[in-house]
């Protein structure tokens, strides 16, 4: 009999799954680097809706979350939940018509729909972090939500933004980090005006400045980002995101894959969003 999934380490698997659903805990001691900073190095597992893969008598089952056991509800609920968020960026009135149009008609206008990067801050916290005394490196495996695999090199040695970075326009911007006690504060500028802040057509200008704040408490990573932009009435702080460290010593990223959008020409109802 062919064994499709051998989970000899089922207990570890259950632990990992459990970590995804447990509230953040401070029970574990926060690892620190030789210079006394919290150590963010490692792989970090996204929280939220977990896709589970398991063996069922020789079949491989990919279990997608969906209300009432209906896969179709995954995207229906996603759309409702995203529109129902009370924490929204507040735009100046001259942008309201454009935002509303993008919300209702912007499926193919969404950069990540057509394989563009999600950009900072939409891509959220990284899946892997490498930390040195003078810089911290964020790596992203790439997904439907974060866009293509990418990385960010963030100096923490006290430098300021280079004039060429200030003059540039880019998807990820240019980041400089500094420490405020145990919080890593990352300030990013040099953005293009093509990325969105969210699924519902939240646009921004070249003037955007993003400030990310990141803490590690035990095995939990806390990440939040605040957006300053001339299009907004006031700075907007995104909903915070938490991740847990991957306990697997053999964790890895799958190799990056090219992206080609094929669905747009076949979509019957572009107002159905998910």
């Amino acid at each position, binding site marked *: *009999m*062919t*064994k*499709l*999934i*051998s989970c000899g*380490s089922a207990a*570890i*698997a259950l632990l*990992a*799954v459990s970590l995804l659903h447990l509230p953040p805990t401070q029970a574990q001691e926060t690892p620190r680097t030789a210079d006394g900073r919290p150590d963010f190095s490692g792989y970090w*597992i*996204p929280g*939220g*809706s*977990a*896709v589970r*893969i398991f*063996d069922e008598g*020789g*079949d*491989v089952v*990919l*279990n*997608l*979350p*969906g*209300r*009432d*056991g209906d*896969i179709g509800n995954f*995207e229906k*609920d*996603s759309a409702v939940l*995203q529109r129902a*968020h009370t924490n929204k960026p507040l735009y100046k009135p001259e942008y309201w018509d454009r935002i509303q149009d993008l919300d209702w008609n912007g*499926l193919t206008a969404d950069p*990540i729909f057509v394989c563009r990067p999600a950009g900072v801050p939409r891509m*959220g916290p990284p899946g892997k972090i490498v930390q040195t005394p003078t810089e911290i490196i964020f790596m992203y495996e*790439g*997904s*439907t*939500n974060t866009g*293509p695999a990418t990385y960010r090199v963030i100096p923490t040695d006290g430098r300021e933004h280079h004039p060429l970075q200030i003059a540039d326009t880019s998807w990820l911007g240019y980041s400089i980090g500094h420490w405020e006690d145990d919080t890593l504060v990352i300030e990013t500028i040099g953005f293009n005006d093509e990325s969105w802040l969210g*699924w519902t057509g939240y646009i921004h200008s070249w003037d955007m400045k993003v400030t990310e704040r990141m803490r590690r408490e035990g095995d939990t990573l806390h990440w939040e980002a605040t957006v300053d932009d001339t299009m907004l009435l006031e700075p907007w702080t995104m909903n915070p995101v938490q991740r847990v460290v*991957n306990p*697997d010593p*053999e*964790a890895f990223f*799958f190799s990056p*894959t090219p*992206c*080609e959008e*094929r*669905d747009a020409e*076949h979509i*019957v*109802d572009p107002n159905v*969003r*998910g």
Partner: protein
Amino acid sequence: MKILIKPYVCILVSLLLGASIASAHHAVQAQFDVNDVQTFTGTMTKVELINPHPYFHLDVEMPNGEIVNWSIESVALNALRRMGLLKQLQVGLEYTVEYNPARNGETIGLMTAITLPNGNRLLMRSQETARQ
């Protein structure tokens, strides 16, 4: 005993979905009839392992004897990778595909299950009673 998925992969339960509120590339209901599941058996002619969705192309013999090439869209590539199944999907081999048909009548489907030549079945389904 052939092991297609190594034990350590079991703890990589993540994830198509990266954010606390997950979204998809697009709502599949906009393109496919998710309430209709159809089945065919065909021969793989092309495998495209790309993002945001892999595509499998299969020649299928229709009831009138005509051979029609179908394009089947899959869940995200990294989900297939986490199942350790990519090398089970080969041009020239025969597969049975269960799919939601395209709403516009094209020979395109959204794969809900595929039966491999060795008889094992890869199945996408939902068992969650509530979102987390």
